[in-house]
């Protein structure tokens, strides 16, 4: 909990940090789609190398990327076990009692593993190199074409930026309450199932109460300053598209096209 890395901005300077947020968000979307085209191990190797280059360019430490993956491991393990057991295609590899594992299942599971790792690493690179405010600004810009059909672009962007803004606050609050309950003898990592449930309850309830309290305070504070979501706004911060952005975007498109073509050819 103390070293939660996922989704955290890392305030350093790098090539990736300086890229336009619109480019980074757009690229992530394209790459996420590309990940799901089945381009075989060769394709994933290609994408893997590309992601490693991005990670290197972003100056994020390997340890920090590993920390982002760690909290997901449990969920991944869960998914993978289910896949291994329930896909029943191809040749039977192992059979112990009712457990039967097929070679297709192993292959599919490996694919899922690679996909998930790629997705987590790419997302981490985006959030680690883009300030939450820039992220929202980028999202707002990208959504702006939908304004014409009545989509509440600004409201959505505001909601996202408020949510992002409060993630660290909620994490801090979680830590604070965990410590307070630990002082009252709660051991979050030990005990029987019943004790575990009670310890989670002792964390969740105060957390929700304070989150609702915060939400109400924030709403009141905004309202008392006459916040109007529909008002026309100007921006202090302007996004400027640079040559490096164009070149980067070209690279992303190239990689994605190669992957898509490979998935059809192979």
């Amino acid at each position: 909990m103390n070293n939660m890395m996922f989704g955290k901005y890392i305030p350093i300077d790098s090539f990736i940090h300086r890229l336009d947020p619109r480019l980074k968000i757009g690229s992530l979307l394209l790459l996420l789609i590309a990940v799901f085209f089945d381009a075989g191990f060769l394709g994933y190797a290609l994408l893997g190398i590309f992601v490693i280059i991005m990670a290197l360019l972003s100056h994020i430490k390997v340890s920090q990327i590993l920390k982002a993956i760690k909290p997901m491991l449990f969920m991944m393990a869960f998914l993978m076990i289910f896949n291994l057991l329930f896909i029943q295609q191809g040749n039977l590899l192992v059979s112990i009692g009712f457990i039967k594992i097929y070679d297709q299942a192993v292959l599919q599971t490996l694919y899922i593993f690679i996909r998930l790792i790629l997705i987590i690493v790419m997302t981490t690179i985006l959030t680690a190199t883009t300030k939450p405010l820039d992220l929202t600004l980028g999202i707002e810009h990208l959504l702006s074409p939908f304004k014409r059909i009545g989509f509440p672009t600004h409201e959505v962007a505001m909601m996202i930026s408020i949510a992002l803004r409060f993630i660290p606050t909620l994490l801090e609050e979680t830590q604070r309450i965990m410590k307070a309950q630990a002082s009252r003898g709660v051991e979050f990592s030990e005990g029987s199932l019943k004790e575990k449930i009670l310890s989670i309850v002792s964390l969740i309830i105060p957390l929700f109460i304070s989150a609702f309290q915060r939400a109400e305070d924030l709403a009141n504070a905004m309202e008392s300053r006459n916040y109007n979501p529909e008002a026309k706004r100007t921006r202090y911060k302007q996004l400027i598209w640079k040559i490096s952005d164009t070149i980067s975007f070209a690279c992303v498109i190239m990689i994605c096209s190669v992957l898509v073509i490979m998935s059809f050819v192979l």
Partner: protein
Amino acid sequence: MSITFKEVEHTYSVDTPFAYHALKGVNLDIKKGSMTALIGHTGSGKSTLIQHINALLLPTSGQVQIEDVLITATDKPSSLKSLRKKAGLVFQFPEYQLFEETILKDIIFGPKNFGVSEEEAIKIAKDMIQLVGLDESYLERSPFDLSGGQKRRIAIAGILAMNPDILILDEPTAGLDPQGAKEMLQLFKKVNQEGKTVVLVSHDMNQVLEYCDDVVVMNHGRVEKHVTVAELFKETEYLTSLSIDLPIITSFILELNKNGFHIDPSIKDINVLVQEIGGQLNE
């Protein structure tokens, strides 16, 4: 010696760009049975320091000894639970830790975690609720219907119910009305007089003067002074340099002395002061 810190360092988020060196070479001996105030600016490391006393935080290096339990960077005490019971910590704004449906359940939550039986815990809860100045009828009410100050009393009752040997309080009177604050401090003094060690983080020098024996001054993650209350308030220049205000009564005495009186500045009690002034006026 009941609480001992030896060369304790603490760095938050080690090995990340967010690393922050919050405690720097802290050496400290807090006497058993004393009521010790911990003062210093916001961000000087007070909350960090006290969380080492019940091992919520482990030192990055150095060691902390709580009676017979030794805490260092590498070896967590084998039984955290007994340490948490020994040193009860009341966080700042403890009202946010309440979660049960009734106040009774919330107060007995701590004792039950430490293995006290339900009946025994209920008995303790009845004593504690009165100790913090509320009556037994509150026990069946929901903690969320109370005022902020009442919630805080319940939270403190919840810690006192664990019957800790050491009571640590992080700014317990922040945001309370003066009367409520006074009652809280009288309660802590009473607990102290029953033989418990009390560590009190406070910004109010009047409280420090009136209720505490010793003072620890923190500044930028270091312990700068550990003296008796009387000695601390003699060092007016030092306190001014930290922009810490003197207690009202002390600054009043100093003002009088500037104008020809000769009054002992360590007087704490208003009645003693009045007599002293009267005596000197008659001379």
